[in-house]
């Protein structure tokens, strides 16, 4: 492998059709003379900055029956990702430098995507005592995002301290906004359907109350807040107002909250059970609008693999969560491009560069600027396909099964090497 590629006739985010040249893993403006390139015909494909997922559950260490760093990396590469953020709710919890370094190393070993660990905010995700955030930040894993995701940092004093504390190393607290007392036994979005189905309601205010509080704390501390998986119209409005006031907040939305609604719970199939729950059509509309107008910065998958037995059961006993790495792009295209409401530049921002900026990943989200590492995703916007439950993830809890999808990732280039090429996964990038 030369690592020199000439991507011929590719469409870039502005709509311009041109050639893209990669030499020794880096983007260059023009092919150097005397260098041999593998020439690829990329007509019809759109090149995007390699996707960056801020919210991926890789399950390793501890829950390797659901996913491993290696299997999650394969799924990510197939979804067009060149970087993913491994959530901290593993066993042991990623609340020490040792665990985050281990996860980062497993990512390097898999070699398909950059795996950036997220550190827990509190010891054991228990919400009682701050974890050693400084040690994780200064470790080889260079953690910048801290989250107790799965649990909410609901103690307001602790949340305030966390926000203050991470300022020292330009950290950000990524909050899973869920007031626990308002969601006791909650199983799905609160409303007429939950009443009909007899499932415990999950009020929107349980999310919005925490976001409102956290925004005030962020303003008070002058720190940086990231809101995970925003799911309600009210949350979008709160964040919109906060941004207008100059509060340093970013927010993510998942592909499933952009596409799916609560009525899928009607059949009691737990593949549609997720935290936060699927909401109403009005919420989906508001989330899409927020994504388009810049209120929401990022599409993050919240890829949450679960083994079959955790879903092959009754609703209440089933685990929360859905996989989503391999369908995220198609959802983004549907919402931003096929809707006619936005464009590929915005898509590149919400799928890649905004996330890279939030996490401070220097090598990601740079797109075609000369001299930067080639982390690129090539998609075919015209390819329509039917997602299957089986993906490269080890788990099959795929709520997009049976939907017709338009637009598909064709190649992923990680650090100048193909990690996914012509719909096939590589052993390692470049091999």
């Amino acid at each position, binding site marked *: 492998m030369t690592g020199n590629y000439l991507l011929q006739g590719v469409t870039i985010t502005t709509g311009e059709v041109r050639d893209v040249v990669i030499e020794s893993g880096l983007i260059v403006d023009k092919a150097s003379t005397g260098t041999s390139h593998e020439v690829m015909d990329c007509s019809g494909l759109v090149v995007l900055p390699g996707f960056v997922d801020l919210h991926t559950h890789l399950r390793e260490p501890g829950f390797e029956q659901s996913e491993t760093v290696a299997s999650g990396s394969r799924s990510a590469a197939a979804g067009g990702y060149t970087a993913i953020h491994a959530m901290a709710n593993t066993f042991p919890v990623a609340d020490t430098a040792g665990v985050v370094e281990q996860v980062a190393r497993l990512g390097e070993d898999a070699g398909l995507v950059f795996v950036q660990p997220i550190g827990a905010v509190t010891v054991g995700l228990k919400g009682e005592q701050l974890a050693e955030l400084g040690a994780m930040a200064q470790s080889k894993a260079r953690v910048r995002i801290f989250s107790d995701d799965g649990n909410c940092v609901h103690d307001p004093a602790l949340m305030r301290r966390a926000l203050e504390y991470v300022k020292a190393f330009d950290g950000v607290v990524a909050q899973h906004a869920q007031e626990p007392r308002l969601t006791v036994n909650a199983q799905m979005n609160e409303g007429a359907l939950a009443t009909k189905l007899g499932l415990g*309601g999950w009020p929107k205010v349980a999310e919005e109350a925490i976001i409102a509080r956290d925004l005030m704390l962020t303003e008070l501390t002058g720190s940086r807040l990231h809101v995970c998986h925003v799911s309600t119209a009210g949350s979008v409005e709160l964040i919109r107002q906060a941004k207008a006031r100059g509060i340093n907040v970013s927010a993510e939305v998942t592909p499933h909250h952009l596409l799916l609604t609560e009525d899928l719970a009607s059949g009691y199939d737990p593949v549609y059970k997720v935290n936060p729950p699927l909401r109403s059509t009005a919420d989906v509309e508001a989330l899409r609008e927020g994504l388009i107008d810049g209120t929401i910065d990022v599409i993050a998958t919240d890829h949450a693999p679960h083994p079959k037995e955790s879903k092959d*059961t009754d*609703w*209440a006993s089933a685990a929360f969560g859905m996989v989503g790495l391999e369908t995220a792009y198609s959802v983004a295209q549907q919402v931003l491009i096929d809707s006619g409401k936005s464009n590929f530049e915005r898509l590149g921002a919400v799928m890649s560069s905004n996330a890279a900026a939030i996490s401070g990943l220097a090598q990601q989200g740079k797109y075609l600027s000369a001299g930067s590492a080639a982390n690129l995703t090539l998609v075919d916007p015209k390819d329509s396909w039917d997602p299957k439950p089986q993906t490269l993830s080890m788990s099959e809890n795929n709520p997009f099964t049976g939907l017709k999808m338009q637009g598909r990732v064709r190649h992923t280039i990680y650090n100048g090497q193909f990690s996914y090429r012509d719909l096939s996964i590589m052993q390692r990038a470049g091999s």
Partner: protein
Amino acid sequence: MRHLLSAADLDKDQAIKLLDLAEDMSDVNDREIKKLPTLRGKTVVNLFFEDSTRTRISFELAAKRLSADVINFAAKGSSVSKGESLKDTAQTLEAMGADVIVLRHSSSGSAHRLAHTDWVGSAIVNAGDGSHEHPTQALLDAMTIRQGAIKHPRGKDLTGIKVLIVGDLSHSRVARSNLILLTTLGAEVHVCGPATLAPASLVSSGRVHFLLDDAIKLVNPDVVMMLRVQQERMSDSFFPTEREYARIWGLNKSRLARIGENTQILHPGPMNRGLEIDAASADSKNSMVLNQVRNGVAVRMAVLLTLLSGEAS
């Protein structure tokens, strides 16, 4: 009819047909030999993940009166508490030859799930799933109401009958199934309970009353259905004390005097005497509680018969 999962599975004609069949079954229960050979060779499994002796016995008797073999599987304290899932338990019982699985489970939708997955092929009867539904309870209530209100009940619906359901509307599967079925049958159904236990989507229907005294005055019900108060609702602060609940929502002597002379009082049992209903009301001539129990057997016979005879397949 392949399964009975929800009161919503029944349209008006089907519901009336089932109630009429239950009347026939009721006649059998009045005979000296209370037994029919109809379901000889069929196996009915009562799969109960929650304790409910009354419902279980009622189904058991119904199956036995139709000559079916009955297996009672109380999942509490068995392998299930050691992590065996609904799926495995149901598959095991089906492998033993269950034609019908009567399921009681604490999780809403479990009967629906059992019926709509490829786990088992048996007919499923929902005998109460979480805070979702309890359709045979609604059928037996409808049967009781119809007998009490209409002289020759066969073939009739409940048009013009006003029913007031009182209690925990948020969590009650009895209330949910009754709301659906009684409405299907043409009754005018009102509900009454603490606002903490009345889901907003119900309140918007305009037939929700917060205070029982108001409800009795406004509705002038033909039927008052008192729901059982679950103790845990109090510890979760849905209402302050038993005393206060009884004062505002309990059926007592003074309220009994204010309801119509022929108003039927229903209660799914077991009653918390002194809480949602006092002794005077529970033992009054208006109380239909024992009719409900009797009709429970007849209704369940009718359901088993319908599921296991030709039309099902």
